[in-house]
């Protein structure tokens, strides 16, 4: 495993800095003729180590923008972002996070194994260590038999699993996921969600998960951040208490507590008062 990278998989005790700390962040995209677009306005959000937080909201609410800012793929116009106590830029350079997008973004000329090893290769991890780590990850996502296949020989769900394995390659303490299951069919999607819950429990990584789907957000998360568009703001933070990640299985999707949380998120999304059953987040804006 990589030795230079500092962030490790184990959840960091609560005395340590938050996994993600977003303070007063705004993002304005300059458009032509001065018609600037405010993608995010005065966003505050703190995510604890090991916590699973979903960002949900209609298109244009800035949820993907917020994730890209945390990943330092874009810079905020104002405000500050820290990842494990470091600036977002330093965190990116130190490989403090793993990232997965809606498109798997695998390199078609590399085998599944070589795709997973790509980040390790870029960071000069030795060949033997790379092979050991990729075998571990292939087993984790259930694709050991496909190690030597090429991406075009895999289904969409399998490709996405490879992308998730790749994002975990350096045992990051934080996973950033931008609608990773957005392009999958419902059946595959639910299976992937169950797998992601298991993987997160095993790795102990904190997750920021962007999604359009209310049930997906509720099923996966400890907290659901509901965002509203134009300008992108956090409208509500809804704590979902569905028990420990290990206990989440298909049965949960039919449990009352699941439906109650779904209702709470939906009402918040539609701008109505959240139901009494849902516990409001404390660090609401």
């Amino acid at each position, binding site marked *: 495993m990589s030795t230079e990278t500092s962030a490790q998989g184990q959840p960091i005790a609560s005395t340590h800095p938050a996994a993600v700390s977003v303070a007063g962040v705004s993002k304005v995209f300059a458009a032509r003729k001065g018609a600037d677009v405010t993608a995010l306005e005065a966003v505050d959000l703190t995510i604890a180590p090991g916590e699973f937080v979903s960002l949900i909201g209609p298109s244009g609410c800035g949820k993907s923008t917020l994730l890209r800012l945390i990943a330092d*793929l874009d810079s905020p116009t104002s405000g500050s972002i820290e990842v494990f106590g470091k600036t977002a830029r330093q965190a*990116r350079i130190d490989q403090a996070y793993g990232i997965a*997008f809606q*498109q798997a*973004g695998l*390199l078609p*000329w590399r085998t599944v194994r070589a795709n997973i090893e790509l980040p390790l290769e870029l960071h000069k991890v030795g060949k033997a260590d790379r092979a050991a780590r990729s075998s571990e990850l292939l087993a984790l996502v259930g694709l050991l038999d496909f190690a030597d296949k090429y*991406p*075009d020989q895999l289904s969409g769900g399998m490709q996405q699993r490879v992308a998730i394995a790749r994002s975990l390659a350096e045992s990051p303490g934080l996973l950033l996921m931008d609608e990773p299951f957005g392009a999958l069919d419902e059946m595959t999607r639910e299976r992937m969600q169950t797998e992601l819950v298991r993987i997160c429990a095993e790795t102990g990584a904190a997750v920021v998960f962007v999604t359009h789907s209310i049930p997906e957000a509720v099923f996966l998360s400890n907290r659901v951040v509901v965002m509203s568009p134009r300008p992108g703001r956090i409208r509500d933070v809804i704590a979902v208490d569905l028990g420990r990640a290990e206990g989440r299985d298909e049965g949960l999707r039919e449990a009352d507590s699941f439906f109650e949380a779904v209702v709470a998120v939906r009402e918040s999304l539609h701008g109505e008062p959240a139901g009494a059953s849902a516990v409001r987040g404390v660090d609401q804006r």
Partner: protein
Amino acid sequence: MKQSASMPRTILAPILLGVLAVALWQLAVVVLEIKPFVLPSPVSIATEFSSSVSSVWTASLVTGANALIGLLIGAIVGIIAAIIATVLPLTDELSAPLVAAASVIPIVALAPVFYTMFGADKETARQLVAALAVFIPVYLNTLRGLRQARPVHRDLMRAYGASAWQSTRAVTLPGAVPFLFIGLRIASSLAVISALIGEYFGGPIGGLGKSITSAAASSNYSLAYAYVLGAILLGLVFYVVTLGLEKLVSPHRASVSTP
């Protein structure tokens, strides 16, 4: 991955059509009593081809060698130029009008000029004509491929904190390979055509182009067509070898458009 079912059809149908066309041709020549200087019959061409196969072969080697040298030089220069233009956009801007001009003028038209420059007894002029013809498609397609990096890959490489050189090697260069081969496929046929046509404007004898003109000039029309047949086969060889090389290098990229 869906051609296997219709395999016999996709191969048999064109062969059948070809055979039918040749038979019709033969029939037309015999029935209509077409003079050989207008159109020799396929049978007479085939007879002439098999009786003079060794001279067609030697002529093909001469023209083929010129085409191959031109193809290699043109491709290498084209690839290097495309890389330079990607790294230094200024060179691209400076050379854009030149490339546009070069892609418009018929390059074989430069052959007479090159014969006077390099001597009419040398093959250099022909090789240069082929190289120039090859350069354009290879350069343009490679350049396009190098600029084709997908946003998700760019984001990934940034997320990995990869250096410029690392992302060039991991993403940009391999991503440009399919585009390079599109250029090479066009260029492979162009190389043969250019090398052959270049012979019409002068230079030493021995190649396919010169053989066609001299056979036609001495009224040996079947022989002229036999050389034309040789030229077709040579062009096919160049194309098929390039295609095979492409399949060998990038077996998992059926087409450029697939992600």
